């Protein structure tokens, strides 16, 4: 049963209809399904309308307004949008967000896969359990707790990290105070927390690869590297794709780590777009512009996801 679970769970999300037909090819609508569907969809539809659609319309509407939190708004047409193009801070914030997001994504995808593969090698059950427990644990701890811990550990003069790095001859790194290292600190701390989940999803993907295929490859005389790149990786591609999409969306939403670790600084070196939206709306009380920036983030996510789906069509193997 589990085998089919994994195989049939493969939907590409683009054309759900074709997958509806995976189980039973297109078939005429049974009488009654419409009403039943309405009833089953009602809870989601209600919450969707109230908490997704309405705020989305709201965010678009607000972007045409100059709106101080404490007074009523005035309609200013496209002023907020023209301001986007002359806002050099926003450019800097997008640059740091994108850089950090790519790094977080890369660590989750590559290091996560490496650790998952290593975790699946032969070892005593109890040791595997220990490793898996350690890797996944930070995932369930709150980001602000994680960031507070690392704020102490990464302290330039008093932190343990620099102290230990000193043994291998590394000079004190200004993890939280320099433009070069602050984003690195945010990336490391965020990945440290999230990679466990990616590992677990990879492990699930690895375990779902049928034994027979690997054995056949061994019989054919393929070595470990060949087996990994020609068999494991292609069969794992839907998992990789899932993690790329989920991690991308998550990596663009990073907020707690820079806020607690570096307050986005120095300058805007480690500021994320979400932090920028929060500051604009709730510290500068500029709700209109904050909404406009929100729209840009939405567009970035839409474009990235579309690209990912397009690329995946070429590289994802749904054998």
């Amino acid at each position: 049963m589990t085998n089919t679970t994994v195989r049939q769970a493969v939907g590409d999300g683009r054309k759900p209809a074709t997958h509806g037909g995976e189980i039973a090819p297109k078939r005429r609508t049974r009488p009654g399904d419409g009403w039943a569907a309405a009833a089953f969809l009602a809870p989601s539809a209600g919450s969707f309308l109230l908490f997704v659609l309405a705020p989305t319309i709201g965010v678009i509407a607000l972007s045409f307004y100059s709106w101080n939190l404490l007074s009523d708004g005035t309609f200013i047409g496209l002023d907020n949008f023209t301001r986007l193009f002359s806002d050099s801070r926003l450019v800097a914030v997008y640059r740091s967000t994108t850089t950090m997001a790519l790094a977080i994504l890369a660590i989750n995808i590559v290091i996560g896969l490496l650790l998952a593969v290593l975790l699946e090698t032969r070892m005593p059950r109890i040791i595997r359990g220990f490793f898996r427990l350690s890797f996944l644990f930070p995932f369930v701890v709150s980001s602000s707790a994680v960031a507070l811990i690392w704020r102490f550990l990464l302290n330039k003069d008093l932190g343990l990290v620099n102290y230990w790095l000193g043994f291998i001859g590394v000079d004190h790194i200004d993890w939280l105070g320099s433009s070069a290292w602050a984003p690195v600190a945010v990336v490391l701390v965020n990945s440290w927390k999230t990679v466990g989940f990616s590992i677990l999803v990879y492990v699930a993907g690895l375990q779902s690869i049928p034994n027979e295929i690997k054995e056949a490859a061994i019989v054919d005389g393929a070595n470990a590297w060949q087996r990994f790149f020609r068999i494991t990786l292609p069969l794992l591609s839907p998992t990789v794709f899932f993690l790329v999409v989920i991690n991308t969306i998550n990596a663009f939403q990073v907020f707690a780590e820079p806020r607690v670790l570096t307050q986005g600084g120095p300058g805007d070196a480690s500021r994320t777009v979400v932090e920028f939206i929060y500051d604009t709306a709730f510290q500068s009380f500029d709700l209109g512009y904050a909404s406009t920036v929100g729209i840009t983030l939405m567009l970035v996510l839409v474009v990235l996801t579309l690209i990912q789906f397009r690329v995946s069509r070429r590289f994802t193997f749904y054998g």
Partner: protein
Amino acid sequence: MTTSTIKTAPRRRATPRLQSIGLRVLTFAILIVAAFAIVAPFAWIFRAALSPSDAELYRLPPSLVVNDLTTANFGKVFEQVPFLRFVLNSIVVAGSITAAQLITCSTAGYAFARLEFRGKNVLFAIVIGSLMIPLQVTIVPLFLVMAKLGLTNTLWALILPPIFSAFGIFLLRQHFFSLPKDLDEAARIDGAGHARIFFQVMLPLSGPALATLGIITFTYWWNDLLLPLVMINDTQTQTLPVGLVLLAGRFSSGSLGTIAAGITMAIIPVLIVFIIAQRHIVQSIASSGLKL
């Protein structure tokens, strides 16, 4: 040959044999370094929580021998912030969101996977599309709406906005696809309606999938910092993540020992639950086949 390895489900699996001892040593070296990098900070914070003075904590090299332990820091946490309220609020918020999402996502997931109705493709495309409109984007209007409804500064403002989850619907739709079609066909022949099929046939088979969604949802909202920061402005209604930041003090001038004690108390219960439930968490995530 593979019987000694942990299984997440009964299944035959090939364990790659590492031919050389060198590779095995390397494998373990990497795993141990990674595990150390993850465990050491927690060990340090637990140690800091028991330390009598902050200056001691910043002494390098850190003294591993602990001679004068104190639990005074824990008492200080309760003096400074309503810690139990934070925990309670977090449990209520994360718990309610999880319960609500399990309802909205399982029903919608079932409809998308196993019912035929007009507009299904369009609706599902909308669901997937909304994956790209995270709450962070719509936080400003969400705040305004909650403010107009008079719900800011109540836990409702934290519970309501995340009730709809595109990710959850997607996850459970995948799961319902995977259940054999004969199941509901048989039930239907027996005269069961959709409600009965859903509750008596589908849900009993959905434990791992629901658990997976539950775990992911609960941890995500247990950890969220943005929503409480925006919606809540009094201390009593705050959740744990903001509470810890408050514990760090005005202008982050709080005592390290106290902050460490707060973090420790925030982590230990999670750690215990996690160790107990670890195998189930791993199994359910593994068997729900997260893919796109």
